[in-house]
């Protein structure tokens, strides 16, 4: 070994210094660049979705002077039986003819009637059902316009001519007349949040999918959290460390990597074909998603159990606490925030899952809002898939709007996870 003078050592350090600093800057720059790329991707995604979907939260509506004429309706009293076959469409047609008295001829009239959504009759029926005294009276009410009208009106705000599509010039004339007189305007789209799916875009809503998702997630949470936590506690705190537990651990990790559609096939084969549970039901969906989220919850729960300092376990054990008391009194409270975070992230994953649910029939066209876990229903991501597949132009914005709702739910769940973690975390 050669002896270096202090001077020589300092010179050698100085020559390397510049390159060391350069590397550090490069490293920092790379980090910033990747974060910037991530943020850019998120911004692009959100602007795209919001710009496409925001218009779905408003819906073109038409103001009509309707007359609940018993003769036209064909009923003389308001009860459920007569309401069932009352001719509300006739009332709407009358109202339209009165507004545009100079329209004549079959095809022209049909064109006129198609201004209003085919679901408008149901709105009237509901209105009359809740206010029976309206029978024989007139009132001014707003009804949804047809989706072609809606598309045209919304396109007017983007370009002057607008997108006519299937709308005829004549119809466009009526629409403009109504717009000029203030009898047609874009109003908040309540239908989107109160209805289930529909073939008619203006009547389609996400309520059924949202409730279906909620039921599915409830089943998933109720099953996967207790099972996952119990499995994690057993493996981490009680199980002997031997070849069998190693095998189990490897398999849990493998299970986390299994493509989700495989779980769907499994659910189809076991829950539907063997146990004969109902198709398209949140119960089956929840069971399948439980299988899918279990590995995630077990792995994150084990990680949070591992992070509890051993000194706490020793302290409790040294006091004569039994193993179960050590776990319940000391380890679990400390591991709980991590476990909850893991569970919520697992739930968020389950909420966005589509493929396995297609296999068990949750892709069916279901109009009714489910009332229980065995009712046929669909879920948000599947609803998005179905709408994205629909040819009507008005479904494009609804698809994006449904994505916005799904993202809002996901962001809420993740915020909850962060908040819970902050709230429950204890220092030791």
């Amino acid at each position, binding site marked *: 070994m050669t002896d270096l003078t202090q001077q020589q050592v300092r010179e050698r350090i100085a020559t390397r210094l510049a390159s060391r600093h350069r590397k550090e800057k490069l490293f920092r720059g790379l980090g910033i660049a990747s974060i910037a790329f991530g943020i850019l991707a998120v911004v692009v995604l959100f602007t795209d979705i919001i710009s496409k979907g925001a218009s779905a939260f408003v819906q073109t509506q038409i103001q009509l002077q309707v007359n609940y004429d018993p003769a036209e309706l064909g009923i003389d009293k308001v009860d459920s039986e007569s309401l069932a076959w009352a001719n509300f469409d006739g009332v709407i047609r009358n109202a339209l003819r009165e507004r545009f008295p100079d329209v004549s001829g079959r095809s022209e009239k049909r064109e006129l009637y198609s201004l209003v959504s085919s679901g408008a009759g149901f709105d009237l029926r509901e209105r009359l059902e809740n206010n029976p005294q309206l029978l024989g009276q007139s009132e001014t009410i707003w009804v949804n316009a047809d989706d072609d009208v809606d598309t045209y009106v919304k396109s007017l705000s983007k370009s002057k001519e607008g997108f006519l599509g299937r709308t005829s010039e004549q119809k466009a004339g009526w629409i403009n007349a109504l717009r000029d007189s203030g009898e047609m305007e874009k109003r908040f789209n309540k239908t989107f949040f109160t209805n289930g799916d529909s073939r008619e875009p203006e009547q389609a809503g996400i309520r059924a999918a949202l409730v279906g998702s909620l039921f599915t997630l409830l089943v998933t949470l109720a099953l996967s959290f207790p099972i996952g936590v119990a499995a994690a506690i057993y493996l981490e705190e009680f199980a002997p460390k031997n070849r069998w537990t190693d095998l189990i651990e490897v398999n849990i990790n493998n299970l986390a990597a299994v493509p989700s559609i495989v779980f769907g096939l499994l659910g189809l084969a076991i829950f539907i074909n063997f146990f004969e549970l109902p198709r398209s039901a949140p119960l089956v969906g929840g069971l399948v998603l439980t299988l899918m989220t279990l590995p995630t919850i077990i792995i994150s729960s084990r990680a949070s159990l591992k992070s509890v300092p051993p000194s706490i376990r*020793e302290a409790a054990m040294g*006091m004569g606490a039994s193993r179960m008391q050590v776990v319940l009194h000391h380890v679990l409270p400390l591991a709980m925030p991590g476990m909850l975070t893991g569970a919520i992230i697992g739930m968020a994953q389950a909420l966005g899952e589509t493929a396995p649910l297609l296999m068990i029939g949750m892709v069916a066209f279901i109009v009714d809002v489910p009332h229980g876990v065995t009712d046929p229903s669909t879920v948000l991501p599947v609803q998005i898939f179905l709408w994205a597949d629909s040819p009507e132009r008005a479904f494009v914005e609804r698809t994006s709007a449904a994505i916005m709702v799904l993202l809002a739910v996901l962001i809420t769940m993740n915020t909850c996870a962060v908040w819970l973690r902050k709230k429950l975390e204890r220092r030791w």
Partner: protein
Amino acid sequence: MNTMTLNAGPAVATGDATAEQNFVKTRAENIKTVGTPFCDDAKLRMRNVNVFYGETQAIHDVSLDIGRNEVVAMIGPSGCGKSTFLRCLNRMNDTIEGCRVEGELSLDGDAIYGPKVDVVPLRARVGMVFQKPNPFPKSIYENVAYGPKIHGIASRRAELDEIVENSLRRAGLWNEVKDRLDKPGTGLSGGQQQRLCIARAIAVSPEVILMDEPCSALDPIATARIEELIDELRANYTIAIVTHSMQQAARVSQRTAYFHLGKLVEVNDTETVFTNPEHELTEAYITGRFG
């Protein structure tokens, strides 16, 4: 060779590293415990204790008695097995994977190891204080009340309050914390935390308290406070303490056991060990020739 190195003691002390290692190695091969490992009124009796971690043997054939109301200090270089030995006394080694204990260990004549022995009541009788203060992340009150609660010692709230107060008083912590019993135990200073751990241990009225280097994470003032406390506790409890500080062993204990490479080398009155050790390894250790 043996005697040669022994005789060359002073020369070794001046820094011949290999000769030093040889000395320790050769002397450690055939160790027979010297001194007075047994006593008439033994609280804890250990006979021919061997401890294995998997294939490696950590404790070799150790026999020792710990007398009633006596403080026994266990000293020795790092890795000599003194902590392992201490943890056998309340079966804290059970949790370590692959740890096996052989030999006879008994507390007041009751076997410590055995298929029928339940560790829960055993650990209530043999409390433990650890190297790093480890209060539960709960309130000071909850920390002390935990033991009495899980063992169902107190039947009423007032009784529990009394146990908590008495334990904290005995641990010399009452005056410092009486106004903030509901504050987290982890918010106390290191020394206070360790005294809280002692209070927690004595709350279940154990017969023996094991202390595994209780002062190694504390400053000298906190250490002095704990040492005083150990002296006071001796009136009611039997104490076994592992320490790295020979001064501490000298200050708090009546008897001192010197461990070397898993073997018990010498047990004697503390004064004898530090002034006139019987075994040359003990002498080498306490004079600072290795450790």
